[in-house]
């Protein structure tokens, strides 16, 4: 077989190097994209986890509470426990620092007790700069910058950090070897004093004495309500869980490229087998069995797969290295802020994705190989061979479609819509597998009797059905993918646009904290709301408070948003019914993610550990409705600001929404408000137009890859058409030669080939459109809610689909026409003298 592969297949490769190179590169592209996504995500996650480990140290147990921390007196209690070898209190604060240009930069402040942290969290230990005091680590005015902060703030001797609505200028006294995003370390007492944490700590890290039982120790600690013993690495797990669906989605998108690559291999090998039918028939006559012909073609596809995979793995590694350098490992999800990971090559992942590439190529080569196996050599030698496709069972196609329908109803596995992806795969494959039957049905309906051109085309297609199948399947595969992605992106974009309309009702927004985690540190000064309300031109001011709440240690913290709700039916993008308020319970409106992640639902009560309450005394809310929140995948709850302030005693405010009097210039209002602010640099302004433009720009950037994938899919479909019609024209040389003898004109030949192209492309496009719409429903109604816990309304952009349809039709017909010009060449008459 190797000799035959070298002699027979090598000759084919040498004869058509570009065609095979295209198939090989498509496999390489699919493998490269998938492998690069895997490497980037794995590297970013690993780096992020490593940074978290640096921060969290080497504790056996972490005592944690909600974001506002807990009473520091617990430290005195746990530190003296006999089973506790070491206890280290830590304060974690997310805030902002001003850079040299006066821009706010997110930064994490870690307050440590240097004496205990040295043993438990060595990565947090400051390194005083040359010339600094040995006791600088205990100086409440000194901060130490990690490498990311040093890079961001340069060799600054002082750093201005936001605390509430004011800035705290602290002295930079050295560095700290902490990985990850910009962070500063300082003495815990200094952090408490500067950031309003007096008497509180964020966590206490514990190291147990050797042999101590974790559960026994936790029980002995008798932790107060609201404080829990967390597992080190828990936060890494949370970010891994939160980002998993996004990472899997990206990988699946990359694998779509591999699927199209498999289809290209199919097209190339189907064309190659059609062209080599006489040679394969001769080999058959000379004694090469059907099974050996099958193996020969499969070996060809496997070789394409191996070569493509190797190139893909190399390319993917390079692509990942470049992406990590340029994009810092953030592929659009924003899950790993500030992380600048280094590439972590994985031989296992390389083996998996390389094998996927080979498997895709072999899958693509399967049908052509079966064609080679099933051909009747003697008949084929005489030019009387059938299409060699054999009698296929009619059931796999409908069975796959039915399986796709059933799988689309299955729940996610581990937060990832595995079944829904399988449903999409089943639908796509089922649709393509149904193509021969669809073509047969179409041909059954067509029975021209008097038009010779139509008769020739239809009878030819009926007899050589696999050629038509290749052309139609190419269009079906590519158009269905393109249609599915178009509908999904259009639906999502439309839903996001309408959501923005609802959540941005005001004329101007004032913001102190960009993230929920910084909302406790970066807030607007008391009395500021009233001051702003008095600004000329301001008609109404709504204040908003954001709080981060940890409801489940395994999940990312949710966002509690408190603002004047008014009439929720108008002020919130509600999904489903709005229940009436129940007497005695304050109202809460949950995001869709709360339903799927926490099983919260309208009519049920929801216990929220509001800040400022006695620990362990959560407040019960009545869930009155569900709203759509595209900004917080981890879940959010909206309550009325008055309820929040009454129940928590927390009157801090993070954002303001301003309604301006008609004719008021937002710029003038901004200027006046900046003058009112104690630190103008600490507040940001945005108009709904700005926020909408930024949001949609981010959206479009995130989905840019899907447009690219659509283009690739359509190009591959057209390649399938080109391959199919080229194969047909080659196989029909004698037929066209005969027809020239019988008096068919060149225009007749071109007409018949182009018309066939148009008919098959139209059939494929119609089938692809239907299949694409079905797949888009799974993407919109199943994959997205299961991945990101939000729903969207289906929007079918008929105009864009019509353009896509027309473009594919035109391209298919032109491709067939170009192939037909070969058939209309004058020397085609010589084909009647060809033996093969």
């Amino acid at each position, binding site marked *: 077989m190797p000799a035959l592969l070298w002699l027979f297949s090598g000759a084919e490769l040498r004869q058509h190097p570009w065609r095979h190179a295209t198939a090989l590169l498509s496999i390489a592209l699919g493998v490269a994209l998938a492998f690069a996504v895997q490497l980037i995500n794995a590297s970013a996650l690993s780096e992020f986890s490593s940074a978290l480990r640096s921060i969290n140290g080497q504790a056996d147990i972490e005592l944690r509470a909600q974001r506002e921390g807990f009473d520091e007196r617990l430290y005195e209690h746990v530190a003296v426990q006999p089973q506790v070898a070491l206890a280290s209190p830590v304060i974690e604060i997310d805030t902002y620092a001003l850079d040299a240009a006066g821009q706010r930069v997110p930064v994490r402040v870690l307050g440590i007790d240097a004496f205990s942290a040295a043993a438990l969290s060595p990565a947090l230990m400051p390194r005083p700069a040359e010339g600094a005091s040995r006791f600088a680590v205990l100086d409440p005015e000194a901060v130490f910058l990690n490498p990311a902060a040093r890079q961001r703030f340069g060799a600054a001797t002082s750093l201005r950090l936001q605390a509430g609505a004011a800035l705290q200028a602290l002295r930079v006294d050295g560095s700290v070897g902490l990985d990850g995003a910009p962070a500063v370390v300082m003495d815990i007492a200094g952090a408490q004093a500067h950031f309003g944490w007096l008497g509180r700590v964020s966590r206490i890290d514990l190291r147990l004495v050797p042999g101590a039982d974790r559960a026994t120790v936790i029980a002995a600690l008798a932790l107060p309500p609201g404080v829990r013993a967390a597992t080190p690495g828990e936060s890494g797990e949370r970010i891994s869980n939160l980002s998993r669906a996004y990472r899997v989605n990206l990988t699946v998108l990359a694998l779509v490229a591999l699927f199209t690559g498999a289809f290209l291999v199919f097209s190339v090998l189907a064309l190659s087998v059609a062209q080599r039918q006489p040679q394969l028939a001769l080999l058959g006559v000379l004694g090469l069995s059907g099974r050996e012909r099958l193996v020969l073609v499969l070996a060809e596809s496997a070789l394409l797969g191996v070569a493509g995979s190797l190139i893909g793995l190399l390319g993917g590694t390079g692509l990942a290295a470049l992406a990590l350098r340029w994009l810092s490992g953030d592929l659009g999800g924003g899950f790993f802020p500030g992380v600048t990971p280094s590439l972590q090559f994985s031989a296992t992942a390389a083996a998996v994705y390389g094998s996927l590439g080979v498997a895709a190529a072999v899958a693509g080569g399967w049908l052509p190989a079966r064609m080679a196996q099933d051909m009747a050599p003697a*008949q084929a030698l005489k030019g009387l*061979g059938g299409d060699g496709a054999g009698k296929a069972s009619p059931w796999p196609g409908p069975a796959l479609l039915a399986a796709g329908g059933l799988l689309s109803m299955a729940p996610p596995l581990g937060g990832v819509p595995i079944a829904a992806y399988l449903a999409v795969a089943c639908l796509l494959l089922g649709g393509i597998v149904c193509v021969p039957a669809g073509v047969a049905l179409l041909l059954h309906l067509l029975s021209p*009797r008097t038009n010779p051109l139509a008769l020739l085309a239809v*009878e030819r297609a009926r007899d050589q059905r696999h050629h038509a199948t290749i052309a139609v399947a190419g269009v079906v595969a590519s158009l269905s993918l393109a249609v599915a992605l178009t509908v999904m992106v259009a639906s999502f974009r439309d839903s996001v646009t309408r959501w923005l309309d609802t959540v941005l009702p005001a004329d101007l927004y004032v913001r102190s904290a960009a993230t929920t985690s910084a909302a406790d540190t970066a807030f607007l000064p008391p009395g500021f709301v009233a001051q702003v309300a008095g600004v000329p031109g301001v008609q109404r001011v709504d204040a908003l408070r954001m709080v981060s709440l940890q409801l489940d240690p395994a999940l990312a913290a949710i966002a509690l948003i408190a603002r004047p709700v008014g009439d929720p039916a108008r002020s919130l993008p509600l999904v489903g019914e709005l229940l009436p308020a129940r007497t005695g319970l304050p109202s809460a409106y949950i995001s869709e993610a709360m339903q799927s992640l926490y099983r919260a639902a309208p009519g049920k009560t929801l216990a929220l550990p509001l800040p400022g309450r006695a620990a362990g005394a959560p407040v019960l809310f009545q869930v009155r409705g569900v709203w759509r929140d595209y900004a917080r995948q981890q879940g959010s709850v909206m309550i009325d600001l008055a309820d929040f302030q009454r129940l928590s005693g927390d009157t801090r405010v993070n954002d303001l929404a301003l309604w301006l009097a008609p004719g008021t210039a937002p710029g003038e209002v901004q200027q006046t408000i900046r003058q009112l602010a104690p630190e103008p640099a600490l507040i940001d302004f945005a108009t709904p137009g700005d926020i909408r433009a930024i949001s949609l720009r981010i959206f479009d950037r995130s989905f840019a890859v899907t447009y690219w994938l659509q283009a690739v899919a359509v190009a591959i479909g057209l390649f399938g058409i080109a391959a199919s019609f080229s194969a047909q024209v080659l196989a029909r040389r004698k037929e066209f030669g005969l027809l020239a003898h019988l008096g068919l004109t060149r225009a007749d030949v071109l007409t018949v080939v182009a018309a066939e192209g148009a008919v098959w492309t139209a059939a494929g496009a119609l089938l692809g459109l239907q299949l694409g719409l079905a797949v888009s429903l799974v993407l919109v109604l199943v994959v997205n809610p299961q991945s990101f816990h939000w729903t969207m309304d289906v929007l079918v952009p008929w105009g864009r689909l019509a353009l896509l349809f027309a473009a594919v039709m035109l391209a298919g017909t032109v491709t067939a026409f170009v192939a037909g010009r070969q058939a209309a060449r004058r020397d085609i008459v010589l084909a009647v003298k060809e033996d093969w």
Partner: protein
Amino acid sequence: MALLEVQGLGKRYGETPVYADIDLQLAAGEIVAVLGESGVGKSTLLNCIAGLDSVDAGSVRIEGTLIGKLPEHEQALFRRAHLGFVFQAFHVLPHLSVAQNVALPLLLLRRPDAHRIAEVLEAVGLQAFGGRMPRTLSGGQMQRVAIARALVHRPRLVLADEPTGNLDPETADKVLEVLATQVRAAGAACVLVTHSQRAALRADRVLRLTAHGMVAADS
């Protein structure tokens, strides 16, 4: 007036001359066999007569029409109406039934005629084979389908290129019998290119094609 009149025909491929000074006249109902060595240009001569190949010198006139002067499109239409072809390799379209293959010239002329198809199939002895697919036929049967197709539209001239080249002698005799009988019955003329002396015996005249012209076979 001769049905086919070839005068001073010359053909070359680039610098390589194929033949020159070919003269040939055929009357209606006449069958002429053209013998010649391989590569002498027998098939090319048929293509030139049919307007399927260009000529470098001379002219071809069929029933007074100068083929070489017709535009390509008109040549195709002329072939469609007035010529019939029989090939060595049959060239029966495998995806059409026997009747559909035979009907093809009539369909091209937009003159579907089931009666004529049945008639010509009966004439070649395939009256029971109309619905059969070519892959179920023997070589001799397929060549008879090709002859039926060549004659179904009552062409004035039949060009047969080695029609028995792929057949055993006994089958070849039967096929030639059918061809000659039907050509004569239709009042058509036939140029029969062949290597076979035995086949040539069926013709009214036997000529030999050489590089320098057409000569009588016994000269």
